[in-house]
């Protein structure tokens, strides 16, 4: 069986994380993805790092390579008239356009998405912007903190027992890495695969308007629906986790416990060898445990301090209690579970050599491949794409290069 999206052609005009992650997913699913970068400069993520040995080198950014494996790369100055004409020809041959220009930049580049949709009736256009294509914030400049912190969780991160105790007065934090950005890219990918499927029957394309902020809000609606429907507002100080436990210290680090039900509490007691304190009737019911959670969590932590995280992990999981050690990325890479599932593909980078590249998490049958195609160098596939897609002779490609269009 061939990959699900073989034969689908995707053009990507995006930088950094969300758009490139969206089309990386499509590439892993078998689509032919052509990444269009501005000549000379390329995608910003080429400069963002992290870099091997912290040596800044636009050819070896891990961020760029992770997000752009399995793609082909060309250069094109889409904002100038000649380049715009070439883009028009490429769009004739494409099934999907993923673009992350906000309205202001679309206008500057003389790109009108509505018009492109009218001109190419079967084209699927996915627009990914911080706040959407319409509304008073549509042209706001925003990077990842701005969008994450205007979403459902930015204000509340961190909250919870430890954060409130240790950092009562500190600023809200991002989610780690480019997390919200990746999520927006995944949302875009879902919308694109649905549009491709739908086109099988309707023959029609679609213009998909993805606001990163809305994408985050619609996926984590818990606090928003509670507030909207009269349950009041949670502040990060009033907020405690809905479960007992959370981040807990142990002999050699941290682990996380998430405790909800009576049966889990009974099992946990047994794992701790039924200490005297656990027989306290205050802890006998869900309500009692919540009411006295401070004491309970402190006592569980005291027990955990004399055990290692691996010991706690295996002992509690055996008893069907939800507990897991907090793994650093190094430990994730060494994790037996991920290894046994061949989660990391074999990738290669210029001047670096072999690197592990996280695969899409689908298990059989589509997409899983043991090796990734190296991310393209700037303009690497100009000859191939301009010739194969558009039939340009070598002389024309040379003259476009000379005039800086590609």
């Amino acid at each position, binding site marked *: 069986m061939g990959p699900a999206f073989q034969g689908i052609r995707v053009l990507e005009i995006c930088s950094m994380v969300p758009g490139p992650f969206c089309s990386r997913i499509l590439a892993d699913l078998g689509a032919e993805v052509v990444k269009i970068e501005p000549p000379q400069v390329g995608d910003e993520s080429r400069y963002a790092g992290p870099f091997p040995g912290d040596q800044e080198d636009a050819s070896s950014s891990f961020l760029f390579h992770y997000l752009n494996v399995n793609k082909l790369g060309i250069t094109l100055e889409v904002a100038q008239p000649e380049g715009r004409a070439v883009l028009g020809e490429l769009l004739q041959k494409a099934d999907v356009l993923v673009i992350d220009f906000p309205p202001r930049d679309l206008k500057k580049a003389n790109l009108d998405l509505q018009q492109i949709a009218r001109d190419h009736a079967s084209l699927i256009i996915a627009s990914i912007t911080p706040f959407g294509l319409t509304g008073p914030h549509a042209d706001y400049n925003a990077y990842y903190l701005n969008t994450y912190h205007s979403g459902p969780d930015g204000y509340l991160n961190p909250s919870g027992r430890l954060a409130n105790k240790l950092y009562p007065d500190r600023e809200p934090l991002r989610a780690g890495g480019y997390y919200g950005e990746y999520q927006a890219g*995944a949302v875009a990918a879902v919308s694109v695969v649905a549009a*491709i499927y739908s086109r099988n029957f309707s023959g029609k394309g679609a213009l998909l308007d993805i606001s990163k902020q809305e994408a985050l809000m619609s996926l984590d609606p818990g606090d928003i629906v509670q507030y909207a429907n009269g349950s009041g507002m949670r502040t990060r100080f009033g907020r405690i986790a809905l479960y007992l436990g959370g981040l807990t210290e142990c002999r050699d680090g941290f682990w996380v416990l998430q405790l909800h039900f009576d049966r889990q509490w009974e099992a946990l007691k047994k794992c701790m060898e039924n200490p005297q304190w656990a027989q306290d009737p205050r802890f006998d019911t869900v309500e009692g445990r919540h009411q006295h959670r401070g004491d309970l969590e402190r006592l569980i932590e005291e027990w955990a301090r004399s055990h290692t995280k691996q010991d706690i992990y295996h002992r509690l999981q055996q008893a069907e209690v939800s507990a897991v050690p907090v793994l650093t990325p190094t430990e994730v890479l060494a994790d037996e579970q991920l290894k046994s599932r061949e989660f990391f593909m074999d990738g290669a980078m210029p001047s670096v050599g072999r690197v592990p590249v996280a695969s899409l998490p689908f298990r059989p049958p589509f997409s899983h491949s043991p090796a990734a195609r190296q991310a393209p160098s700037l303009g690497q596939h100009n000859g191939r794409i301009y010739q194969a897609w558009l039939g340009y002779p070598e002389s024309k490609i040379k003259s476009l290069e000379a005039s800086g269009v590609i």
Partner: protein
Amino acid sequence: MQQALSGSRVVDFGTALAGPLVGALLADMGAEVIKIESKTRLDGFRMGRPIIGQDTAGGDEGKWPDLMPGFHAVNRNKLSVTVDMKTPDGVRLVKALIKKSDVVTNNYAPGVLGRLGLDYPSLAKENPRLVMASMPAAGLTGPLRDMVSYASVVAAASGLMSMIGYEDGEMVGQVQGPWGDVVASLTVTMGIVAALRHRHVTGRGQFIEIAQIEAQTTMLGEALMDYQMNKRVRGPQGNYDPNMAPHNVYRCAGDDRWVAVEVATEEQWKALCKVIGDPDWAKDPRFQTLRSRGENRKELDQRISDWTSSRSPEEVTELLQAVGVAAMTVMNVEDHFTNPHFQHRGFGVEVEQPMVGVEWLPGFPWRMSKTPGQVQRHAPLLGEHNEYVWCSIVGLSKEEYERLVQAEVVK
């Protein structure tokens, strides 16, 4: 209106968040999604308890399974049936329904459906076009396949949790938001639609499995490559970004009010300085390049805070955005409802729910020009569509249906 997945039928065994969100996205796109429920083992999201101790008080009067807004948000547009799968008749009914469906989705632990004879090979024998998806925490194979887990456990195991914390402190230990669930749901949804397309081309269904931990780890790819190749554990980075300075969340006037400001270019830095009145400190050589601003970020952040702390986040946002500097209010839920942008976009939808009246639900994560996803139906009451599903879709006679209700197979 014809929608992207109109004409597809989905049997949704999901509970809590990760599973039901898959069905909700498919239903938003037009699929007929039938939620399989049981009155004896309710979906936890229908309950005020035991998950939230305090929220049970006003909820009861015998109808509380139908009152929780959080449940309504992730079960919008679905149908609900109640069936006792511990009885052979109950399993037979569900099998008959799956035979007439396109997709089965679930977030059970490995083996649960198999013990009921609802494993993919058995189901596919009856319905080779069936697409089925499972989303166990650690996957269906490997030494940890039976791991018991919820969202925070997934965050701990994926590596995400270890990256969240202040630069000068330890990790803070709670990932705000159930991202483990959400990311898994997105991945499963795209897998299901991709498999439907594959079926359209080949005529054959397939089984898809995704591990929630792996789905989350795919969003940390560059960090993992960094750790692997540079052999180091960086630990929490706060809001620091080596490519932007200033780059942080700054205190504003008011009670726990904040603004996020990110400066990527020298042009933006100069524009910011101008807005704050070109103070003398900004002329210090230490603040003239991105690198040196980053190196001196502690002092820089203090200076920026001095300016923001006497202004509202909205004022800071407006002043800085007017000159092209990325700034945005750190929004709490109240802000989401008062913000003019949201009003303009019409993000939320109001849905009439028979038990609670008109209810606000969040909209769809993307706008589709030609086949818009819509909230067309309130989240189902428990067992609301038993008769429709078991008689009209599965084809039970009225008498047989009544018999199964009497026997508490349908209950």
